[in-house]
C-alpha cells in the first residue's frame, strides 16, 4: 500500500493538491481570534490552547471530503476494490496520507501560532504532544466519515455533522492536556485517556471504513 500512499502524497504536493488548505485555514482561525476576543494577553493565553486545538480540528474537518471523493469520481475506488489489495489497507493508507498532509503540518505550525496567542511557555511541549497524539485519531475518524458520505452529492456538510460528535472525546482530552500543560498542572490522566482513545480508534476504524466502502461500492 506504499504505492497508494506515495501516489496520494505526490498528488497532494502537486498543484491544486490542497496541501496548504488545512494549514491556511488554521492560520486564519488563529489570527482572527484576537480580533474577535480582544488583544489582552492575559485572556489570550488563557484560551490559547483551546483555540489552537479547535483550529486544528476544524482544519482537519475541512479537508476530509477530499479523501475519497476524487477517487470515487474517476473510478479508482472501483478498480482498487477489484485489485489484490485489502480495502482496510486502502482506508489506513488514506487516513495516513490525510494525516501527513494535514494533521502533521498543523501540529508543526501550532507552536508558531501559539506565539501569536501568547500561549504560556510551558504549554508548547504539551500542545505539540497532544496534537501529535490527537490528529491521527482525527484523520482516522474523518476517513470513516468520508467513507460514509462518499456516494452522496455535496456530502461535505453532512460529513461535518456526522464527524463532529465523534470528535468530542479526542477534542476534550486533547485540549485538556494542552490547557493543563499551559497552566503547569499534571497532564497524565488526560494524556493517558487520549492515547487510549486514539489507539483504539486507529486500530478499529479502518476496518469499519472498509466495510462502509464495500457497501457504497455495491
Amino acid at each position, binding site marked *: 500500500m506504499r504505492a497508494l500512499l*506515495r501516489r496520494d502524497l505526490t498528488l497532494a504536493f502537486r498543484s491544486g493538491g490542497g496541501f496548504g488548505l488545512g494549514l491556511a485555514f488554521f492560520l486564519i482561525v488563529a489570527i482572527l481570534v484576537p480580533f474577535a476576543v480582544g488583544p489582552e494577553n492575559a485572556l489570550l493565553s488563557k484560551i490559547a490552547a483551546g483555540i489552537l486545538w479547535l483550529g486544528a480540528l476544524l482544519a482537519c474537518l475541512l479537508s476530509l471530503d477530499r479523501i475519497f471523493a476524487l*477517487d470515487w469520481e474517476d*473510478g479508482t475506488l472501483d478498480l482498487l476494490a477489484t485489485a*489484490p489489495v485489502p480495502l482496510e489497507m486502502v482506508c489506513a493508507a488514506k487516513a495516513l496520507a490525510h494525516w501527513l498532509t494535514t494533521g502533521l503540518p498543523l501540529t508543526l505550525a501550532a507552536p508558531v501560532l501559539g506565539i501569536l496567542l501568547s500561549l504560556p511557555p510551558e504549554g508548547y511541549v504539551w500542545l505539540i504532544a497532544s496534537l501529535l497524539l490527537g490528529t491521527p485519531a482525527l484523520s482516522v475518524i474523518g476517513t470513516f466519515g468520508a467513507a460514509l458520505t462518499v456516494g452522496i452529492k455535496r456530502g461535505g456538510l453532512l460529513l461535518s455533522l456526522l464527524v463532529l460528535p465523534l470528535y468530542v472525546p479526542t477534542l476534550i482530552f486533547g485540549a485538556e492536556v494542552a490547557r493543563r500543560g499551559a497552566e503547569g498542572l499534571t497532564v497524565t490522566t488526560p494524556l493517558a485517556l487520549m492515547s487510549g482513545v486514539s489507539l483504539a480508534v486507529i486500530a478499529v476504524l479502518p476496518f469499519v471504513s472498509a466495510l462502509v466502502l464495500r457497501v457504497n461500492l455495491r
Partner: protein
Amino acid sequence: MALAVENLSVARGGLPLLAGVHFRVAAGQALILRGPNGSGKTTLLRSIAGLQKPTSGRVECAEDAIAYAAHSDGLKSNLTVSENLAFWADVFGNDDISPALEGFDLKSLSDRPAHALSAGQKRRLGLARLLVTGRPIWVLDEPTVSLDQTFVAMFADVVKSHLAGGGSALIATHIDLGIEAETLDISVFKTDPTADLGAFDEAFL
C-alpha cells in the same frame, strides 16, 4: 475453462434484473455482450468482477484473475502517464510498464501529465492500465467509448494479442470490434421484475 458463469441472477435498485445467466469463456477466447442500454450489462459485469454480490448463482474463475475496467478509468490528471501506469502496476504487483507503453504507443507521451492528453489518448492510457495488471481475464465495460476508428483497431489488436497469449476477455460493447468472438445478447436473460429472486425490495412487492 477461464471463466464460467452458472445460473447467475443480479438485481439493481432493489429489483431483479437478469436471471439464469450462464456462459463460459475459455482461455484464448473472447465473448461480446450485447444488449440495449440499461439492460444490465454494467450490473452483470460488476457482479462478475466481484464488486457486487449477485442475488444467486456462481461465478467460477481462478482467484484474483479478473481485471475490471469501466468507463471511468481511474487516472489522475496531475500524474504523468508513466506515474499513472507505475502506480497501477505496483498495486497489481508488477513493475514493468514498458510493454504497456509500447502496446498503446504511449512511449512518446510517458512524461506528459494526464490532463494534457486528448480524450482518445486518455482512453488508450486507461486500456494500457489493463495490460499492466497482468490479469488473464479482462472484464471490460464499453472500452471503446470516445475512441476513433484507428484506435479501435489498435484496441482490437491488443485484445487479439492478449487472447493469443492465453488470456480471455468479456467485453460489453455496441460497436463491432473486428475480433472473431461469440456474441451474447443478454436481453435473453431479462427477468420479469416481479419474479421472486431474493432481490432487496422483494419483501415489499
